[in-house]
């Protein structure tokens, strides 16, 4: 699909095509719908600035999904760093969390079982599985987004499922 019509028409077409996929992927990586919305907003602002250099709608789709994926992973890393810093600042020298068992339980329950399971995967496997299961992208498309071969995508998707199967085997997780 190539660019036709005005720049605004092109942007609108790409937005309607890509936003539903991008926001699902962001949500499945961040587990937070509001954060996912913010990250998609940021990605489309970046695309608005870059649009003239990406006149092909298919390439635009890959580009935006790549940006959303990177923003989502960076957001998670930032949260992780902040959590570590907070623990150090407030709970040193004790490394034991001050959360009670009940608080911890309630927090875990608030996050879905699926999101918890996905969070156990390494980034490179999680991203592939999320794009496949929730972005409904083909192996070829995932390869284009990540800059890896289809074979590599296939292997990563399988490894991700294997790891999730082990996780599900080992825990008290309801599997339909």
């Amino acid at each position, binding site marked *: 699909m190539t660019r036709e019509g005005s720049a605004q028409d092109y942007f609108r077409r790409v937005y309607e095509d890509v*936003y539903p996929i991008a926001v699902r992927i962001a949500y499945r990586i961040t587990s937070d719908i509001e954060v996912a919305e913010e990250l998609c907003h940021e990605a489309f602002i970046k695309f608005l600035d870059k649009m003239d250099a990406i006149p092909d709608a298919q390439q635009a789709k890959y580009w935006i999904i790549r940006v959303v994926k990177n923003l989502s992973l960076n957001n998670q890393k930032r949260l992780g760093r902040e959590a570590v810093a907070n623990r150090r600042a407030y709970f040193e020298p004790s490394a034991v969390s001050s959360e009670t068992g009940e608080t911890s339980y309630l927090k875990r329950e608030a996050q879905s079982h699926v999101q918890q399971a996905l969070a156990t995967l390494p980034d490179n496997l999680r991203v592939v599985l999320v794009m496949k299961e929730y972005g409904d992208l083909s192996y070829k498309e995932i390869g284009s987004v990540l800059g890896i071969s289809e074979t590599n995508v*296939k292997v990563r998707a399988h490894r991700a499922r294997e790891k999730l199967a082990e996780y599900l085997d080992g825990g008290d*997780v309801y599997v339909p």
Partner: protein
Amino acid sequence: MSLEDMRSPEDTRLSAYLDDELSVSESQRLGDRLQQDAELQDRYARLRGVQEFLRSEGDPSFQEAMERTWHRLSLRNFEQQRPNWWSRPVAVPFSAVAAAFAILVLVGGLLIRFGGPTYFSAEPQQADRFGDTVELSAHARESEELLRRLSGWESRDEVTIQLPESRTFEFVGQPVIVPAGH
């Protein structure tokens, strides 16, 4: 690809089968095997269980988020948001830069090789009357050429050489007296 993956290419194919990513013939072959191989069926069921688990919780609705984001993007006046054409980044392929550089070097080389002296002013006119002054400018590097021209110029009376007023100008060697008629 790790050793583990090389040992289990069939499992990887099972995953691709689940994703409907195999060719028609591969899919047909694996489907036939699945009918007959109970152990393969178990492995497939395991992967399928993971897929069903992942799909067990549907996505929340993103419709409102999509409309809200579009509204926010629309508020950024679309045309004003986009930078003017002269300030937009332009992607120039490396090969184009290399070709332009090669052309520049070639043209420069040709000019140096075949270009004539560029510092001489036009050929001076002969003085018509006694006392007329004719000015001739030349680059310091071409002083020999200047002297050669002066020697071929009859009825010269007085030659005044004006050195450039430049900080970068340097004297090299001692002044040389050039005999008349040289």
